[in-house]
């Protein structure tokens, strides 16, 4: 392509990028305005900028608590999913019988079932054994998210030769040791992908936790929903709240971008 057409493309791309980022610009600039300032002009930069909105919405959101809950739930669920799915995929891949083929199909077919089809009996059952809390939620995530993760691990496992297992077995390793010391470390690239996909899904999830968690364990999306209900039409507070709650995700994205893009690609293409 000629230099001239490249620079035309470049200018077009930059314009498109600006349009793409414009919503973020509006949210962030208006979050520093007073209610009067927002009323006077939405599009301009803040004239009398204030950080009061942040102080107030940080308190109203009980942000440290909801951030902690989000972190605990996401980390616990992702660790359990990684371990459970890698173990499950290993068993299924190293057993070439009809049974394991059938079980894999069972896992994959679970992905077809939309959440709404299970939601009421699921919450009723967990409620009847007093498990409508963080730990119940973590178990639910293992059930909902393990199918895709097993499917992804399965593909990678088929490229690890059986000779690896056999060599370890000759040296007297148990099945668990073979898995944990030999196979699992070799799965690390896929583990990053599985982790990324599950982090994004679980961190942002709203409907399931809204049906499961008591108010004392609210995550960021749940707290945001509550907060928004209380402060409708008080955009100065709402916008500061939005900015605070997307900040952790944006930081994570900018740091781990390379892995995130790879993970998302693997998850969709494989």
């Amino acid at each position, binding site marked *: 392509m000629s230099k001239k057409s490249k620079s035309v493309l470049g200018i077009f791309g930059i314009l498109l990028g600006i349009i793409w980022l414009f919503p973020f610009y509006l949210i962030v600039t208006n979050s520093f305005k007073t209610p009067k300032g927002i009323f006077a002009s939405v599009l301009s930069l803040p004239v009398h900028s204030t950080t009061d909105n942040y102080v107030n919405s940080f308190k109203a959101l009980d942000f440290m608590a909801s951030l902690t809950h989000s972190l605990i739930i996401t980390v616990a669920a992702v660790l359990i999913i990684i371990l459970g799915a890698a173990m499950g995929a290993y068993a299924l891949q190293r057993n070439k019988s009809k049974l394991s083929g059938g079980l894999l199909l069972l896992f994959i077919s679970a992905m*077809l079932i939309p959440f709404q089809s*299970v939601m009421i009996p699921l919450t009723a059952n967990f409620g009847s054994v007093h498990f409508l809390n963080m730990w119940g939620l973590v178990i639910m995530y293992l059930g909902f998210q393990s199918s895709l993760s097993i499917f992804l691990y399965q593909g990678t496992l088929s490229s690890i030769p059986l000779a690896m297992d056999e060599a370890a077995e000759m040296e007297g390793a148990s099945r668990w040791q073979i898995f944990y010391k030999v196979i699992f470390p070799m799965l690390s690239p896929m583990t990053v992908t599985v982790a990324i996909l599950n982090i994004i899904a679980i961190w942002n999830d709203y409907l399931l936790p809204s049906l499961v968690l008591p108010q004392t364990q609210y995550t960021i999306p749940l707290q945001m929903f509550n907060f928004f209900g209380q402060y409708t039409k008080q955009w100065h507070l709402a916008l500061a709240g939005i900015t605070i709650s997307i900040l952790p995700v944006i930081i*994570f994205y900018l740091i781990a971008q390379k892995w995130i893009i790879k993970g998302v690609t693997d998850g969709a293409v494989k």
Partner: protein
Amino acid sequence: MMKNRSLSFWLFLTPTLVALALVVFIPVLEGLFYSFTNWDGLTYTKMVGFQNYIQLFHDKAFINAFWFTVGFVIVTVILLNVIGLGLALLVTQKFKGSNFLRTVFFMPNMIGGLILGFIWQFIFTQGFSALGNALHMSWLQNWLTNETTGFWGLVIVTVWQMAGYIMIIYIAYLQNIPNEVIEAAEIDGASAWQRFTKITFPMIAPAFTVCMFLTLSNGFKIYDQNLSLTNGGPYHSTQMLAMDIVNTAYNSSNFALSEAKAMIFFVIVAAISLLQVLYNRKREVDL
């Protein structure tokens, strides 16, 4: 190798199999059963046959949600694939800043649908009206107050969120096209348009199937954006299928009817996915 009867085979599978049964298979079977009863969320007193299923076809809210969702899915599938492919072609041209643009376009996809809906609620209600005043365009006023602007509002949010995701998938396939092929065509005097239609497009056909499926099934399942952007309003006119099912259960306490709706929803979503698998199989055989 692990044998079917070996203890370790089953121990390795226990965590995920138990969770899957508890969370997906047992509840879905219960739900199926309850959809044939007069279940109120706690107990049921009798079997009612297909009554709930007959009722849902006369349920105006459900029928309206169905057609609203179908329209939404058609529009977003087209827009997401056109824009997603366009962005992918743009950022793979290797000009200065193209990598940065990739980062920008994908960014909205990191934020959950609930918060995205809130962000755009501000933009549609406050930002659009300010812009409308500045540019003297009356169509930018009063967004989200009627079905049409609610519909396009949901479309815009979804496109903004997912276009970067679709872009990433197209990029993965675009990068698999060998440079020599494009260069050879260029030497032979093929125009940019010919190179795109005769080489690039056929070679990324598999990406098209993947993206089509993703956008289709995601479109049907959307809930969070719907809740935070319009909450189905005004007067349930922008309520999509997933939201209608949730509201039938938790707002109207009509649990058995909600389960029947959810089973129909399941059939729709599963049918789309199975068609996709069959289509892929067929194409792979053809190749």
